[in-house]
């Protein structure tokens, strides 16, 4: 039985759809209930919903054998897990944004507001820039508007929120999407089951790409 941690929310539902289509369905999960754990003995899987940023913690500590986490979380927290597959869903990018017309003043320390201090730090380290990190937990876009920071480092999906607040992307850092991750010790003992699941999911992803291309 493989324990699978899925991220709560819209992304989790899309991801479960992929697992289901790949032959790892669990009908109870579609029922409207308050249960947290769903099991399909027939398909050898047990799913549980967790907060998206907690998926990698469940997997790293072995409470889940595999899980689905955003690349942003993997880059920020560097959990000791295998990153087996790019699921190609939940696509967005990590980017630096600033108020429209912003010019970088190399004479001053750059103030960077972000929920992702490690990603921001390593990005600016490669550019040898002196920065001050201002760690925020939400509404990051407010920071440059109110003068709390010069720029923000955040996830950009469509860019609508930025545009509506007169902000724009200054630099792209890295593309983001959902990744299938596995516990390193669990992988040793469940290698056959995990490898088979990966193959089935990869085949399912190829089907989806072909269908999308067919529609175009």
């Amino acid at each position: 039985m493989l324990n699978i941690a899925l991220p709560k929310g819209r992304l989790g539902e899309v991801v479960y759809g992929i697992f289901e289509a790949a032959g790892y369905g669990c009908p109870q999960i579609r029922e409207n209930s308050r249960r947290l754990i769903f099991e399909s003995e027939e398909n050898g899987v047990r799913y549980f919903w967790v907060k998206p940023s907690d998926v990698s913690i469940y997997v790293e500590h072995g409470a889940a054998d595999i899980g689905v986490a955003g690349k942003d979380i993997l880059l920020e927290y560097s959990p000791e897990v295998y990153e087996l597959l790019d699921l190609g869903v939940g696509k967005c990018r990590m980017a630096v944004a600033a108020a429209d017309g912003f010019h970088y003043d190399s004479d001053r320390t750059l103030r960077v507001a972000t929920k992702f201090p490690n990603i921001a730090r390593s990005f600016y380290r490669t550019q040898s820039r002196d920065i001050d990190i201002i760690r925020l937990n939400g509404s990051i876009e407010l920071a440059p508007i109110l003068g709390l920071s010069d720029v923000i480092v955040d996830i950009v999906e469509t860019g609508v929120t930025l545009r509506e607040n007169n902000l724009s992307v200054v630099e792209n850092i890295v593309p983001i999407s959902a990744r299938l991750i596995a516990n390193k010790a669990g992988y040793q003992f469940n290698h056959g089951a995990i490898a088979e699941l990966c193959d089935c999911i990869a085949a399912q992803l190829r089907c989806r790409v072909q269908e999308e291309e067919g529609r175009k």
Partner: protein
Amino acid sequence: MEINAAVLKNGERAMLALRALYTRYGYSCFKMSKFEEYDFYVHNRNFLRGDTIVTFTDNGGRLMALRPDVTLSIVKNVSGCPPQPVKVYYNENVYRETRGSREIAEIMQTGLECIGDIDLYQTGEVVLLAAQSLAVMGEQWVLDISHMGFLSALLEAVSLDEAVREKLIRCVRDKNVGGIRTICAEASICAEDTDRLCTLGTLFGPVEEVLPQLRNISVNAATEAALDELSALCDILSGVIDTKRINMDFSIVNDLSYYNGIIWNGFLRGIPQCVLSGGRYDPLLEKLGKKCGAIGFAVSLNLLERYYAAPRSCDADILLLYDDETDAVALTQAVRMLCDSGKTVRAQKTVPEGFRYRQLLRMKDRGLEILENNA
């Protein structure tokens, strides 16, 4: 002196069993100080895991560090070029930052080092002892083996700049084949080399099954030499241990500037992290001015505590109550008698809050009265 194994913690029990194992193979115990001068670690920081070293100033004003690692201290104390291999084992605590919480933790560690002229026999013996250590600690174990020489030769053959190389190593470590393909495409690496690197990211399985696939991606004399060493090691191990439990897995990657040959990680079912890790680390010896090779491994015994066995169901077999009128001589004899019968006994006047016991007894003039049985 007889030791009742039931009173030992899992880590302590494993430590004693491992000590016996290493002694049987002629390794001698190495005892060392808990402190080293901070400077010593600063020069070899990449060899240590984690960034934080606990420091303090001693009476002479020197900046000292609580030992974050044992291997460095052992290597430091070995003469420049020992005529015969130095074989030592240790049971020591180290002080390191834990992953995730970033708190400093005291970690009980045991391990062994073989330093000197490391030939094929010595390599085989150390890897065999690593596998036997896992077998001592649990029935279901797996030892994953990689070869830093193979990995570095393959990467050198592709001739990459340092930043790309580091990213690729990280992807191999994470089994992130998609990442390898992306980086190779960005760095204009040819399709053949990309496939070779992707193979490294996916290969997993018993050494004898995986070796032929590795031969297919071998590129030069250095990669061939690494594979010959793995093959010879496999021959040694197959005669004495179940090699189906020994997998080839290149996701084990250590710092190339410290490790150069075979490296490995050991796992026990039920423990979500690697409990044993080791490898060949000649470059460290070179950095410390020693003209010889070295191989060894460490076991993190603290990981055994939480995952290894079911939690204790009671605090003592018997809770024996007495009062101010009880004859202390008779009480002492009664406790002794119960202990001699193999039971664990706590004697006191009242029941402590939350205390769990199998049997509650009271000391009376006539003898012991049973008040409660929870067995």
